[in-house]
């Protein structure tokens, strides 16, 4: 029995994972991955099946907990945005070495064009780095179907599987046909194989050899995947790589001579993956005579690529993200075989692909009829009216005006918007937790005052260890933990440290007199600025905690309360 639901790519992944019988999802919120876990948290199925779905403190704790669940014999999923992979990397890469017991799928949501991120890193490199299978769906339907496939693959190969999506798929909705059955949680006996799980050098060396030896097999799986496809004009799509791609159909209208094979006429080829495949299809490339290979699984199936290239005069690689596939296709076909893509300027070197730039690369340039009228100005996002972060920045700006040498090291969250007018209050924002540690390093170099501004959720994600470093060194820094009682930027998820911040700071060794709590409101401005001044003048670590609930979560609570009343 099936049913049709209108789902975001993220939600299709959540449905797929639940239908695959997961026992837990572990995640730290991050755009564009947040909705996967949110969907599971709000689903009836997660309650009925007792699926673990509370938020983790960060991506590394999430990855490790999921690995533990896999060890114990159940299927588990980890979700994060691409930069979260950097945080989880230690556990992620070593999970490739230990292998898994219950199926383990890691979902990484990349953000090409950096709609809400600090960089454009492509998570497929992590899959290659860890030498594990990596999947890349093109559509919401595939995202759903790939989850069951991913868990089976993970258990069969005894490896974690990475599933990589991009913002456009994560946050685009389509009708998805899903199972209407109620799945049972998959459970196997807990593992006991210490030679696999204790990564002492002797064990690790053996595992490393085995994983490396497995790579050709994994490549074959990429070519026999049900999501792999070669399409040629006038022929139905061939899936699973049965029925070899016939190399020498000559297609009129779009043919070129194969280099070094004078006289023979071959069609142009395209290798596409993920959302890139959709843009290729949008431009009717088969009707234009192109041959098309869709890759949905890595390691790159080198043999299939080589064979496909033999039947084409050139290859255009269409992929969202960095030129991960393009570089590998180049090295597979070698020599002076023409491979086009982002590296050759046929597609933009950076940023998200779209149907128009892909159209241009296949010779279908569209010229818009209307232009944006002159004088239209950008409308940047801003902190909500009434947001407590506003009062924090007003106070900081007021005090720091008297300290021209001061610097404010900020962090990742709504409060990063303090960089924009009217506040222009922060000097840096680099990665989760870097506010405290960069302030410390700058203070070590003699910079004063060095102020760190970090949110409550970011503090428990990656700020606590840095604060311990600062305490141990008696660094002269002032840390502002702007506590809005939630993870606001991603839509108001629970924050791991709520009600615990004073205790955490004291336990890490910050002196009691220098842990100060204020309520960031205009009427308290005098008190707040006085406290900031006092702590800037204190030579050592001080923590100021302005605490007031996020306006958005507050409003949501009021609405829910109103409806229940």
């Amino acid at each position, binding site marked *: 029995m099936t049913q*049709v639901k*209108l789902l975001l790519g993220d939600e299709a992944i959540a449905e797929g994972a639940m239908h695959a019988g997961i026992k837990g999802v572990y995640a730290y919120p991050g755009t564009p991955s947040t909705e996967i876990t949110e969907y599971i948290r709000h689903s009836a199925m997660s309650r009925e099946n007792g699926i673990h779905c509370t938020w983790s403190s960060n991506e590394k704790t999430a990855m490790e907990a999921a690995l533990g669940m896999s060890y114990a014999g159940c299927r588990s999923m980890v979700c994060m945005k691409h930069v979260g992979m950097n945080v989880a990397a230690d556990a992620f890469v070593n999970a490739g070495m230990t292998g898994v017991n219950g199926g383990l799928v890691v979902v990484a949501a990349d953000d090409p064009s950096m709609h809400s991120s600090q960089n454009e890193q492509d998570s497929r490199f992590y899959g290659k780095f860890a030498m594990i299978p990596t999947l890349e769906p093109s559509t919401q339907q595939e995202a759903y179907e790939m989850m069951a496939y991913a868990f089976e693959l993970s258990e069969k190969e005894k490896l974690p599987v990475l599933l990589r999506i991009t913002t*456009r798929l994560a946050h685009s909705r*389509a009708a998805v046909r899903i199972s209407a059955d109620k799945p049972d949680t998959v459970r196997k006996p807990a593992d006991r194989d210490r030679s696999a799980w204790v990564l002492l050098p002797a064990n690790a060396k053996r595992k490393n050899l085995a994983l490396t030896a497995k790579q050709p097999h994994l490549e074959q799986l990429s070519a026999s995947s049900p999501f792999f496809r070669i399409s040629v004009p006038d022929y139905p799509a061939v899936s699973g790589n049965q029925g070899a791609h016939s190399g020498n159909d000559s297609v009129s209208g779009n043919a070129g001579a194969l280099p070094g094979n004078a006289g023979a006429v071959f069609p142009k080829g395209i290798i596409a993956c993920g959302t890139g495949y959709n*843009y290729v299809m949008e431009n009717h490339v088969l009707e234009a005579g192109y041959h098309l290979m869709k890759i949905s699984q890595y390691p790159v199936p080198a043999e299939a690529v080589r064979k496909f290239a033999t039947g084409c005069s050139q290859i255009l690689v269409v992929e969202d993200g960095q030129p991960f596939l393009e570089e590998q296709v180049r090295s597979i076909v070698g020599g002076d075989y023409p491979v086009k893509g982002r590296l050759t300027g046929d597609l933009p070197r950076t940023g998200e692909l779209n149907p128009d730039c892909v159209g241009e690369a296949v010779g279908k340039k*569209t010229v818009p*009829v209307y*232009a944006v009228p002159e004088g239209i100005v950008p*409308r940047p*996002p801003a902190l909500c009216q009434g947001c407590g972060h506003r009062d924090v920045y007003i106070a900081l700006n007021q005090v720091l005006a008297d300290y021209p040498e001061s610097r404010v090291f900020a962090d990742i969250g709504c409060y990063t918007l303090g960089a924009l007018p009217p506040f222009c209050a922060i000097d840096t924002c680099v990665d989760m937790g870097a506010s405290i540690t960069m302030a410390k390093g700058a203070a070590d170099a003699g910079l004063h005052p060095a102020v760190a501004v970090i949110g409550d959720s970011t503090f428990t994600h990656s700020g606590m260890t840095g604060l311990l470093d600062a305490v141990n060194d008696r660094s002269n820094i002032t840390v502002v933990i702007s506590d809005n009682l939630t993870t606001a930027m991603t839509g108001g998820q629970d924050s791991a440290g709520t009600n615990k911040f004073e205790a955490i700071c004291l336990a890490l060794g910050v002196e009691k007199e220098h842990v100060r709590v204020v309520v960031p409101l205009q009427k308290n401005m005098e008190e707040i600025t006085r406290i900031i001044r006092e702590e800037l003048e204190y030579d050592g670590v001080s923590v100021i905690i302005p605490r007031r609930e996020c306006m958005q979560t507050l409003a949501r609570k009021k609405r829910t309360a109103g409806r229940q009343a």
Partner: protein
Amino acid sequence: MKKDIILSGVGGQGILSIATIIGDAAVRAGLNLKQAEVHGMSQRGGEVESGLRLSDAEIHSDMVPLGSADIILSMEPMEALRYLPFLHKDGYVITSSSPFLNIDNYPEEKVKSALAAMEHVITLDLDRISQENSMPKSANVILLGAAAGVIGILTPDQLRESIRNVFASKGERIVEMNLRAFEIGQEYGR
């Protein structure tokens, strides 16, 4: 038959609810649909846009290609103009004429004259209309009503049915108010 619609506005103006209503109607009508949303940083009072594609054939790209939108449906006049390169030459701009002034350098005169110069354009003073009818929270549904005659691929009845569905969980009073908002919008769309 296909319809590509660009929904635009300022974060918090409720363009995603418009998408939800049209999406519900499309699925009921058995149409294919893709709707790319905006989440995250861009919602804090910044510009927001969502591309909505409806078709009886398979839809590949989640994004609306340049020059192919049949309608730009906008809660805010400058935000309508921002996406003009996506508009098909015969496409319609249906927009609120009430500017949302949260920036210092808002080009009010330029926005007015640019809209006036468009051939297929329906503007309505959403702030005034929604206030006069005491339904400030249903401004988005008024706008949808104004577009009902142009959407074509879905009938006004199908849209009305989906308004019922989408707002059902909020109680009959809210459903009725939104149905009325839709009708008011239809008047302006004629």
